[in-house]
């Protein structure tokens, strides 16, 4: 497994505290990339190339999280979810706050509670945790040679793909804006602001999608999402994507579902921005241990690069 991917998985990147991973991303940008900006929503925008055409390639940088809403007298921390996942898929995980304090996530009566092993509210406050602090799911990363097993892979795959694309992409026929956006777990709030500022000709959002091995499988290539609850993929951009895939012999899967897209607010900005979502298939997405295929990641990156260079 690529060292970079490992580092990304190792870095806690919670909604509202994406600065740690943004720092890591900046560190891994090629030296010749100089047009790097952070905007009011904390998005990192990397601009390469110039020309009449303006493209936005966007992913989110935050992973699913748990926000401390109340600290009980006995030291238990009640938490609420940030992101779209269910209690069953994450209970009994080990979770970690930004300051390194760790605990176990329990589900009791449909409510999520973190046990830090402390005995009083005062002890918790002294450890540096208070209401409003956010914790993330931690877990070991397992290299299965052609696959990777670990926590939050679905939330980091997009970052990895964008970074690799920035590194590899050669022929630019326009200005490409790579957006590492914040608050993706909350519906793509950062992405919206970036889309407004950039006002591109079109936008491709890169994310991950659950693979049930029935209509979406791993190892079968990137997934083109035709439509979901919040975004109808623009048909002209879909054609562009299909051509690039055919030309470069990349197999793509097609799907439609009732999820919410990172592009849901992007496409309604300004006079409207044609937007399509491309996903990496991921088994057990949203659970504490996810499974992804390295080949799918590479093919998705290749597809994005081919679309940009077309």
């Amino acid at each position: 497994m690529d060292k970079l991917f490992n580092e990304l998985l190792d870095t806690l990147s919670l909604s509202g505290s994406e600065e740690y991973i943004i720092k890591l991303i900046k560190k891994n940008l090629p030296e010749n990339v100089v047009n790097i900006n952070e905007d009011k929503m904390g998005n990192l925008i990397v601009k390469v190339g110039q020309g009449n055409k303006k493209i936005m390639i966007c992913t989110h940088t935050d992973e699913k999280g748990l926000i401390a809403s109340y600290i009980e007298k006995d030291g238990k921390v009640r938490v609420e979810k940030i992101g779209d996942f269910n209690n069953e898929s994450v209970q009994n995980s080990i979770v970690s706050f930004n300051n390194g304090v760790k605990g176990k996530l329990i589900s009791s009566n449909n409510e999520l509670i973190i046990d830090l092993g402390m005995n009083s509210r005062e002890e918790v406050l002294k450890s540096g945790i208070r209401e409003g602090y956010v914790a993330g799911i931690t877990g070991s990363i397992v290299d299965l040679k052609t696959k990777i097993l670990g926590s939050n892979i679905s939330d980091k795959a997009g970052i990895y793909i964008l970074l690799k694309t920035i590194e590899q992409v050669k022929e630019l026929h326009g200005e490409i804006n790579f957006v590492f956006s914040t608050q993706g777990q909350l519906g793509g709030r950062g992405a919206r602001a970036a889309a407004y500022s950039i006002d591109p000709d079109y936008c491709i959002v890169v994310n991950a999608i659950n693979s049930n091995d029935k209509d979406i499988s791993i190892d079968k290539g990137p997934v083109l999402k035709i439509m979901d609850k919040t975004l109808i993929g623009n048909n002209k951009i879909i054609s562009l994507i299909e051509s690039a895939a055919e030309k470069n012999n990349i197999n793509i899967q097609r799907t439609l579902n009732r999820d919410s897209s990172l592009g849901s607010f992007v496409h309604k900005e300004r006079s409207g921005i044609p937007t399509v979502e491309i996903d990496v298939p991921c088994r057990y997405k949203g659970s504490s241990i996810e499974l992804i295929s390295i080949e799918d990641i590479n093919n998705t990156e290749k597809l994005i690069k081919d679309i940009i260079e077309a």
Partner: protein
Amino acid sequence: MNEELVLKELCTTDSPSGREDLIYNKIKELFNGLGEISINNMNNIYIHKKGKDKFKVMLMAHSDEVFLMVTDILSNGFLKFNAIGIDPKTLVSQEVIVHGRKEIPGVIGIKPPHLMKDEEKKQGIKAEQLLIDTGLDDENLKKQVKIGDYVTLSRQFYELLNNNVTCKAIDDRAGIAAMWSCANELKQAQHDADVYFVCSCQEEVGHRGAKMAAYDINPDIGIAIDVTFDSGEFGDKDRENKLGGGPSICVGPNVHCKLREKIIEIADKHNIPYQIEVEPGNTGTDAWDIQIAREGIATLLISIPIKYMHTTVEVVNVDDIRNTGLLIAELIKELSQDELEGLFCF
């Protein structure tokens, strides 16, 4: 050319959400000579009729219709699908068009009743139980159709009694027909306002095109024209909308108070029949997104009452369409820039 013929041409052209470019040529044909016509990259269609350029009025009716989408290709010519905005109960024995590599006619069938268990016979239908039968062999089907292809409903246009007509997609081709009617009224008129007739995209999936077009045009006034429920036996009994009773003017937070009072004044002055309906919050129409575009736009919502919304047998009264167009045209003819300042003052 009259409102009924315009409506017929519009309804019998397919335009599912996201593919409103499919109706662009028809719009160009019908609105020819009524203004400058263009389409933007998200399929919002604009018809611009110049006035004295003192201020901008935007009329908006959505050009998309409810639709189905192919989710799976099965054997023997059958397709599985999702229904977007349509009650699956109304799809049984419905003829459709699958927009694959070419237009493929299909039939939505159901398990014969004598094979249904007693339980099944009593329950409603879910979209997952229905299949589209294309009659094609496996090889041809796979060549012509893929996952994500659009499917639209088939229906001819019929005249009923009392100037009522029926077809699919009256929601919101009736609105576009009303804009045509308005544009015709204004053809020879002089007016202070620059008028934009907008056929907006993707209303049926969440009035998405409205925000984009309102941003693009940045009008002083935005008038959304959509359809609403009648208050008959199978309509919304809380309202007071009758087919033939005239356009229904909306009252509520989504609508600019003084502008609404002005249009009612105009209706009374010119003896144009109208009805009133109240919406306490989100009207679920383009008006909702128009109102808060950019720094805010003074918004009106005018609705044409119809029956059996989102089915292939929507019923509307042609006089209501004509009166909607007429009412808005009279408003535009009368509005002067000076008066506007007073109307917009709080």
